[in-house]
């Protein structure tokens, strides 16, 4: 926080990540997959940055790179001006206090054999802080849960409540950056709005920078100021949210926007046939340029 506001929260310079697939033959070398290809972007402090992409677009890999859970094969990643890309995990202690994650599946991201108290306190214990009773209660309260929740197990809560616990854990070390990987994709519609409101609240209340990944354009639109559209490991378009929606430049972005079966559109008479035809048309356009 002491640094000038000029330092961006997150900066990526030509980041690539290749994976070697399992060999399929003893004679040919293992095939190489480009999960992330030459991605450069700057996320300012306090910004809400969204990444949209379909499965296999590389958005989750990119998140892991930014979070220091994986290392790029090329390029640089700076978080608050400090390098993350070439550091081994044991030298990223500072990053764990700066940047925290919320995951997609609130069941599998909470250890079923740990009590909520220990789950929320985990980032603190990792920093060597052990008497966390008060802090855990504070955090649970901040996400709208009672202190009694601390003594229970994850399976005793509904999906929405578990996602609240997940947010509480992320807030524990007092991070500046919150990274959310499809945080509402596994939730029921009636609960999704609650969790989106909660994320909105904590980002505002704790002055966080938000990086929000989703396959759902309408969710990203609601949450983010600026959006990157990702396909096959690349950012095909980056633009302020409203601009992207009203005037998408890249054919793939246009295709994605056209494909969403939106309630208002459907009530206005847009059928499945229209939807598919739109997607197909944009797809053909996209094949030419993309």
């Amino acid at each position, binding site marked *: 926080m002491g640094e000038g506001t000029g330092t961006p929260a997150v900066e990526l310079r030509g980041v690539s990540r290749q994976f070697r697939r399992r060999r399929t033959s003893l004679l040919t070398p293992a095939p190489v997959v480009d999960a992330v290809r030459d991605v450069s972007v700057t996320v300012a402090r306090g910004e809400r940055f969204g990444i949209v992409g379909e499965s296999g677009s590389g958005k989750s890999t990119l998140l*892991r790179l930014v*979070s220091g*859970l994986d290392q790029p094969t090329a390029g640089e990643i700076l978080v608050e001006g400090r390098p993350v890309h070439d550091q081994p*995990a*044991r030298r*990223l*202690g500072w990053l*764990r*206090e700066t940047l*925290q*994650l919320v*995951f*997609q*599946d609130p069941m*599998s*991201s*909470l*250890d*079923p*054999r*740990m009590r909520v108290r220990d789950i929320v306190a*985990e*980032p603190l*214990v*990792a*920093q060597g802080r052990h008497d966390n009773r008060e802090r855990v209660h504070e955090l649970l309260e901040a996400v709208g849960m009672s202190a009694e929740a601390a003594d229970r*197990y994850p*399976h*005793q809560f509904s999906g929405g409540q578990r996602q609240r616990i*997940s947010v509480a*854990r992320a807030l*524990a*070390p007092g991070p500046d950056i919150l990274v959310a990987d499809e945080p509402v994709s596994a939730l029921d519609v009636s609960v999704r709005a609650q969790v989106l409101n909660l994320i909105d609240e904590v980002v505002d209340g704790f002055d966080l920078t938000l990086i929000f990944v989703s396959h759902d354009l309408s969710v990203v639109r609601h949450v983010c100021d600026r959006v990157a559209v990702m396909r096959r490991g690349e950012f095909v378009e980056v633009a302020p949210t409203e601009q992207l929606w009203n005037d998408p430049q890249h054919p793939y972005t246009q295709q994605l926007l056209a494909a969403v079966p939106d309630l208002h559109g459907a009530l206005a008479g847009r059928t499945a046939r229209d939807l598919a035809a739109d997607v197909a048309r944009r797809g053909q356009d996209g094949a030419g340029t993309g």
Partner: protein
Amino acid sequence: MSEVGRAWGRRLNPSLVVGGVLVTAIVVLALVSYVWTPWPPMRVLPVEAYQTPNAEHWLGTDRFRRDVFTQILVGARTTLYVGLVAVGVAAVVGVPLGILAAMSPGWLGQVVMRTNDVLLAFPALLLAIMFAALYGGSTRVAMIAIGIATIPAFARITRSGALGVMKSEYVVAARAAGRSPLAIAWRHVLPNVAGLVIVQASVSFAIAILAEAALAYLGLGTPTGQASWGRMLYEAQTTLRSAPHLALVPGAAIALSVLGFNLFGDGLRDWLDPRLERR
């Protein structure tokens, strides 16, 4: 609070109760044998051989004029000892190896598992017979051999469970929280593979009991003059027709203890799982 401590308050399942009763019975038999036996153990008595069960000798006497019930009591010690040594050796070495293999993506994990595969291909009894030939036949040598031969089973099952746990998001979350690999292994991986390990332990315990019986039956393992259910079975084979109770009694004891440990393991796994807690 320990995992066991938390588990109180959960419903006891039938496997756990039946298995627990059988296992407790064996432990009680073994403990009682230290302070009291109806007749002096392993002693040739001035009584008639081949007695069928009667008031003096509850389960009869064998051809060496020894009291069968006394031998069953003392033999329970051997059974427990055998299981504990074999499972202890296998679990203490196998579980950490399995976790190590799962948590090291590179060559180290590969080396551990390939070595494991080689060991797995080696029959446990053969190893025990080799050890008996090298170091002389004793219960301990036989059981260490059985234990070593069971290491791969533990390593394998631990690794497969641990691989699943390592893929889970809560481990990624722990890494993102800054937890060290050792802390992750201890706090996340081990508790979540404990169920698998417990089941494997109970199966191995039963296998070890059977292996001891088999080795004793072959005349390897537990030497003459020491009480063992397997040894009793071995000695009863020549009189199977004339005095079937001499084989039936230790046979039933072995069968019940094997059943007991298997049920107990299954029951314990479910009982320790917080997800199965009554809400």
